[in-house]
């Protein structure tokens, strides 16, 4: 089983002997009930990832892709969806350098974090998940694999890496520039 992005970040932090505290659960003030948070979760390359729920506008099936010349491997191409041209991001390739299979009709979550709107290819759509605030911790304080992370959710099925779109785009840009 490959290391997930969270495993990698944790391992890096341990290697560096970082004194950063563990992502402690947030405890609401006595008598104040914090509302649960909503996320949209997908499975990619054996890991679980999520975006803030309000960023995911719909789930679509990929149409025929138009490949883009000079595009990095994680930018698979574009396709038209209801007259709109959407770029397709292979999250597995970007995060873990493991290409996701692009079978016909594969599903993707459309993430809209202004100004970006992108179809994120996934192996499996988990969909909306409701998370008690106490289960949301800060991202591990590590470089490298953790650079995309906004937070980490611990639920009954394990950890979920919450991705921050501006960081994803920023790192994607850096990796797309030829050496």
């Amino acid at each position, binding site marked *: 089983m490959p290391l997930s992005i969270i495993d990698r970040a944790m391992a890096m932090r341990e290697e560096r002997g970082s004194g950063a505290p563990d992502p402690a659960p947030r405890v609401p003030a006595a008598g104040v009930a914090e509302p649960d948070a909503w996320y949209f979760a997908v499975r990619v390359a054996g890991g679980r990832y999520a975006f803030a729920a309000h960023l995911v506008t719909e789930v679509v099936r990929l149409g*025929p892709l*138009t*490949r*883009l*010349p*000079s*595009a*990095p491997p994680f*930018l698979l191409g*574009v*396709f*038209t969806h209801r007259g*709109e*041209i*959407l*770029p397709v*991001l292979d999250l597995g390739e970007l995060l873990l350098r493991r290409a996701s299979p692009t079978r016909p009709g594969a599903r993707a979550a459309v993430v809209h974090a202004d*100004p*970006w*709107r*992108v179809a994120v290819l996934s192996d499996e759509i988990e969909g909306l998940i409701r998370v008690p605030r106490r289960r949301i911790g800060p991202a591990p304080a590590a470089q490298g694999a953790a650079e995309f992370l906004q937070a980490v959710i611990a639920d009954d099925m394990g950890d979920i890496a919450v991705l921050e779109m501006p960081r994803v*785009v920023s790192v*994607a*840009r850096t990796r*797309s*520039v*030829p050496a």
Partner: protein
Amino acid sequence: MSDGSRQLVLFQVGARVFAAVAADVRRIAGSLVEREEEAVAETALGRPWDARRGLVVGAPEGERTVLVDGVLGLRAVPDSEFQSLPRFASDILPTAALAGFAILDEVPTLVVDLPTLVREGEPGRGAGPREETRHHA
């Protein structure tokens, strides 16, 4: 550009079909370029397989010929069938020469900014990241 449509030249590089605004093309030539330095073979679009044709483009120093595998023809495309490159793609692609898409027979076809393609193809001016201030088509 006139009456709400644009004239495009459709051409092929390798297996891919691209489009360019016809007004950017001075003429269509064979691949036999009088001066080798005028030819632009390796671009962000890739390298042509056979380079049987050339798109002659104006450049500050004269003319440059973008070598392509074939010219498929001209086509008038309504303005409504043009879309800019999605911001995510334009932020990530290491070239500014991809101006957007023309929807041709329901297929998004890349519209190439030939002057920019030529400029990027000049020695010492390899394709770099887009400028933040670039206007989208």
